[in-house]
């Protein structure tokens, strides 16, 4: 971490972008502490907090007991009392252990207490399939969070966004749930620390296109881009939208895009039913109803627990081939 002031073009990993964001934020703001299971000595189950203990000491980088409920609750208490904690849950699947503190406390204290106090904190977690983690270590539970008013929710796909979203979340007063993806840590991309285009709460139009809008977030964004490249070769022009934040949700960018392309495919790794993709599908229908050439399609993981067997897990979530296939069908 000696090259702090550098910009990274096409070479920083998602993991390092996160580390750097925490590092830069902690240098700037002494009120930021990090707490979570194995985030200090171990450096985080996926390495996203590596070296921070050495740099900032154990007063600010704190290994906790395996007590998810109290981790979130203590971070909340610290956030109410002058600090700006980053708490980490090792897997989003552990929302279950701490859902009361997340949804009944963190999300609601400002409101219940009539605006007297806020909880400026970031709760980082990591989700998704891809490592045969099974039903309890592979979920995508953003829908629970998006269904909980009071919580900001971000799910970056790219290192540059990971950096800026985390930096921004560490400056605002709203509690933010920050969900990473276990298969993104090793991916890499550019980082522009002074990115003039970054705007919190704004979706990113990664490819402009005119035939179909593919809307997604987190790892599925990369699938969408890959599919778009293939479709381009077949003369289908795809607009790829990376939502980046789910709350706030950039409805305008979605609607504007679909008003142009008149076709939409929503991709997500979450369960199908009663979900973020249901929400986005509804929004598009509601607002583009008259001009849509085809029904909106939401392509998600299956409405079953996540299987361990790698051959099953692979087809349990959207595949690039099928994204291509469904896009073509929509453009027929």
């Amino acid at each position, binding site marked *: 971490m000696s090259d702090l002031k550098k910009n990274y073009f096409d070479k920083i990993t998602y993991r390092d972008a996160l580390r750097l964001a925490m590092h830069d934020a902690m240098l700037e703001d002494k009120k930021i502490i990090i707490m979570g299971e194995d985030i200090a000595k171990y450096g985080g189950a996926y390495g996203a907090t590596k070296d921070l203990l050495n740099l900032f000491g154990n007063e600010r980088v704190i290994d*906790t007991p395996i007590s998810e409920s109290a981790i979130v609750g203590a971070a909340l208490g610290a956030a109410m*009392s002058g600090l700006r904690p980053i708490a980490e849950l090792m897997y989003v699947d552990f929302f279950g252990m701490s859902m009361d503190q997340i949804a009944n406390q963190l999300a609601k204290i400002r409101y*219940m207490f009539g605006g*007297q106090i806020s909880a400026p904190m970031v709760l980082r977690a990591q989700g998704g399939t891809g490592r045969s983690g099974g039903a309890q270590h592979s979920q995508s539970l953003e829908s629970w969070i998006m269904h909980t008013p009071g919580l900001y929710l971000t799910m970056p796909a790219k290192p540059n966004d990971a950096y800026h979203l985390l930096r921004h979340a560490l400056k605002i007063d709203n509690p933010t749930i920050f969900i990473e993806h276990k298969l993104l840590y090793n991916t890499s991309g550019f980082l522009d620390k002074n990115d003039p285009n970054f705007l919190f709460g704004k979706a990113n139009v990664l490819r402009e296109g005119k035939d179909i809008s593919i809307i997604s977030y987190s790892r599925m964004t990369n699938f969408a881009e890959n599919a778009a490249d293939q479709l381009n070769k077949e003369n289908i022009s795809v607009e790829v939208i990376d939502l980046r934040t789910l709350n706030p949700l950039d409805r305008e960018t979605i609607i504007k895009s679909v008003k142009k392309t008149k076709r939409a495919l929503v991709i997500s790794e979450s369960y199908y039913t009663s979900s973020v993709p249901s929400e986005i599908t509804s929004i598009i229908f509601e607002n583009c109803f008259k001009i849509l050439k085809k029904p909106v399609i939401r392509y998600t993981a299956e409405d079953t627990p996540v299987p361990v067997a790698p051959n099953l897990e692979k087809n349990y979530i959207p595949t690039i081939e099928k994204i291509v296939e469904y896009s073509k069908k929509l453009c027929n």
Partner: protein
Amino acid sequence: MSNTLLPALYNTMRRIRTFEERVSELFIKGESAGTMLHLSIGEELGPACVGTAMKNNDTFTTHHRGHGIFIARGGNPDKMLAEIAGKKDGYCKGKGGSMHIADMKLGHLGANAIVGGGIPTVVGAAMSYKYLKEERVSVAFFGDGAMQQGILYESMNMAALWKLPVVFCCINNQYGMGTKIEDAVGIKDFSKRAKSFGLNTLHINDLDVEDAYYKSKEIIESARKFQPGFIEVECYRFFGHARMDKSPYRKESEEKEKRKLDPISYAKSKLIKNNILNENEIDKIDNNIMNEMDNAMEFALKSPLNDEKEIFKDVYSKNDPMPVSVHEKIKKILSN
């Protein structure tokens, strides 16, 4: 021993009781926001002794039965009653109600309607004080019911592990709703549990509030020196669980018997016996409190209702847009 302490403690306990009587009245008048009103009548000793032993900058969270604790910590009865009535001038603009009263200025980090829900908050607050080198203690108040919530033990362990300036204070009123403590726990000795996690412990089980104050003070001051503590105050919930509950699950004879164990009467007798105050002086205190609480009642009743827009405020920070109402959303869709 000072000659002002017991009168002060008596005053606090009496204020709590009179306040709670007004809450009850508010309910009977049909002016309370809902019926989930949990009175601390009979349980005044704990709030008074621990609340008084805390210092100015100390902070706390409470459970759903938290009016008394906040009164003991300086809560304003006007704003409390207005909150309980769901009115605009309430502590939380009437949006929190009885179970969510809070006042950051007085260190009240919030009442909580989730049994055990406010406990880890004090762990975090104490982490903050320790890190910022502020000499403050944070106290979690909760009922015996919360002794059965896992989050308490997670919090105790963290407090002991990190040597935090925290006190866990269990107001054991013998019941969780209609369930007697004996039917809710295998072993009733809560101090033993707390000790096994590494906390200093104190078990208060008599009616002498003055004595309880000195003992509580020790626990709190140890916590300030980073030895976290646990206080159990045994008492009895004189009335039903909430305003609708007539306690059919326990015998009237039990209630009668137990209501004799009244910390306020005890303090009054002691004041008189020790020649600190006489009957007349005490009556005067009581009357002043009556007046104070009458005024609070008037304040609450007169306080205006909230504007409808209040629904959308305080979800996100002031710098961020408020949630768009469902009606706006529908309007827009219909206008497409």
